[in-house]
């Protein structure tokens, strides 16, 4: 079986082959080939930036549809707290959860409740830990994949706890099985702000198998839910999470919950890369914890959300204020003692950037790369289909492109050839009378 690597895909008919996505991809994982964007599977870390920047909406995430609820007898929704920040004038989490349930779910369990459990475990780990400082949050799967590809040395810094999504799914399944429901009849549906979580449900990091069965995007759910919320007659008291769990949706939320002052909360993948570079340079050994989230503003800025990240933050704050005024409901069926909260599978580095396994050959290729790069115009126009001139040079040494893919090099060659032709045309064989020619 081919390993499932990412959830971001291309809708070919919508792609016009422009350079918007190739330019922004943080792992240089996209090339334009034959007029269409092509994702290099093993390099994509599902950050979803290409989904956000594509003006033709040609990039999308492979998520499930609400129709697949019918595949299961017993259906449970586990919404990410980002869902609470999507609706107009609705800041009561119970209203949103009641509406969600009415879409056809038997139960709802909040990922933000699971986040509170993760916070408690993380606190213990950070205190007792022999983890390398600064400890890096494992909450955002994009950042873990980024570390695997670009910062392998920092794998040892990652907090080895499973994500709130996974904890929520485990709690739900464990409880329902205890209540006598057959495991194969249970469908756990994560309501997701991003593509990376969808990948994690299919191909998780740090664990063998995810307990999440389907992943619905917030966009997918929003369409039906927004209408339903207006027609509710009775609001159920379903919220069991409170302030600390819900604020995980925004940047700094996880870190603040840990009750340590000495942490960095960084959001937006380009910013996270800068901070990880500093960790790599040994500059941040005095920092205890780094919460890095790939999207601007944290999960609120996820590519599969409806509301703009900054407006969503304002809405989430209102929802949070609400939770301070009303106490959360009890949650009797957690049974966290039955559940493993830690990674049990090694997270390996993925050296996809390496030019060759044999370093002698890699050095030769690198020298060739530098030579080619020197010839290129170095204006990074992207017309060749690679994000910049260096990436084209790299593609050439990997035999994935030709130097004539560069329009400037092509023009230069055509001109040289034309000049040769002219020069050739002026040469007259000695045997002929040059007046005739």
């Amino acid at each position, binding site marked *: 079986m081919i390993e499932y690597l990412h959830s971001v895909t291309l809708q070919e008919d919508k792609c016009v082959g422009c350079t918007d996505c190739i330019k922004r991809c943080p792992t240089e994982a996209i090339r334009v080939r034959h007029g269409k964007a092509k994702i290099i599977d093993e390099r994509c870390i599902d950050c979803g930036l290409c989904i956000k920047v594509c003006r033709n909406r040609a990039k999308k995430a492979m998520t499930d549809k609400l129709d697949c609820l019918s595949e299961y007898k017993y259906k449970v929704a586990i919404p990410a707290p980002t869902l609470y920040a999507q609706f107009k004038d609705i800041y009561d989490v119970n209203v949103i959860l009641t509406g969600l349930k009415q879409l056809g779910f038997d139960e709802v369990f909040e990922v933000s409740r699971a986040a509170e459990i993760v916070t408690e475990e993380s606190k213990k780990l950070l205190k007792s830990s022999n983890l390398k400082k600064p400890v890096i949050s494992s909450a955002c799967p994009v950042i873990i994949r980024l570390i695997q590809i670009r910062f392998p040395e920092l794998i040892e810094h990652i907090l080895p706890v499973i994500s709130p999504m996974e904890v929520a799914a485990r709690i739900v399944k464990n409880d329902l099985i205890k209540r006598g429901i057959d495991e194969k009849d249970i469908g756990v549906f994560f309501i997701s702000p991003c593509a990376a979580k969808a990948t994690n449900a299919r191909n998780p990091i740090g664990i063998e198998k995810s307990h999440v069965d389907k992943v619905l995007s917030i966009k997918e759910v929003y369409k039906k839910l927004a209408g339903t919320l207006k027609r509710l007659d009775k609001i159920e008291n379903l919220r069991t999470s409170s302030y600390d769990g819900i604020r995980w949706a925004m940047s700094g939320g996880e870190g603040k919950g840990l009750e340590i002052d000495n942490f960095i909360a960084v959001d937006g993948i380009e910013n996270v890369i800068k901070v990880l570079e500093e960790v790599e340079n*040994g500059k941040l050994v005095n920092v205890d914890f780094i919460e890095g989230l790939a999207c601007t503003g944290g999960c609120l800025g996820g590519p599969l959300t409806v509301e703009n990240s900054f407006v969503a933050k304002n809405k989430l704050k209102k929802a949070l204020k609400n939770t301070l005024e009303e106490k959360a409901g009890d949650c009797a069926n957690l049974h966290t003692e039955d559940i493993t909260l830690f990674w049990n599978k090694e997270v390996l580095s993925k050296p996809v950037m*390496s030019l060759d396994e044999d370093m002698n050959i890699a050095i030769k290729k690198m020298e060739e790369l530098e030579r080619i790069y020197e010839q290129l115009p170095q204006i990074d126009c992207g017309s060749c289909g690679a994000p910049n001139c260096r990436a084209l040079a790299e593609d050439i040494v990997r035999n994935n492109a030709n130097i004539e893919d560069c329009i400037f090099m092509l023009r230069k060659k055509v001109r040289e050839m034309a000049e040769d032709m002219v020069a050739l045309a002026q040469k007259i064989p000695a045997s002929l009378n040059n007046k005739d020619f």
Partner: protein
Amino acid sequence: MKLNFEVDGDDFLLAGEASSQVKKVLKQLGVASDIIRRIAIAMYEAEINMVLHANGGMVDVDISPEKIYIVFQDTGPGIEDIELAMQEGYSTASDKIRELGFGAGMGLPNMKRYSDDLKITSELGKGTKVEIIVYLNREGD
């Protein structure tokens, strides 16, 4: 293979460009990540030193499958007492530099700690040459 960089002395915020570039190249060459990290730290310290004390300079990197050899050459004021400069916590950084969060006196000690070989030659008023070697296949040390 050889790489050369010019380190601009005007802006300490830009220091680290050379080490960033070298890191990227080493990753593409498939060099083990712990070695990359040691080189990154040693290089960054040397680079920032050149910016803070010597108004920039040149960096030459020579990469072979056996070792990575890096030379930092500046035309700054030079180091008066190298032995003293190697001591942890010793720094000649001005108050202004210290206010910026530098000058903890860990630059040279860190370079020594993270490299396999460190050689410093300096002449007062002329400049300083720092040579760093990190071996790629040395095991157990």
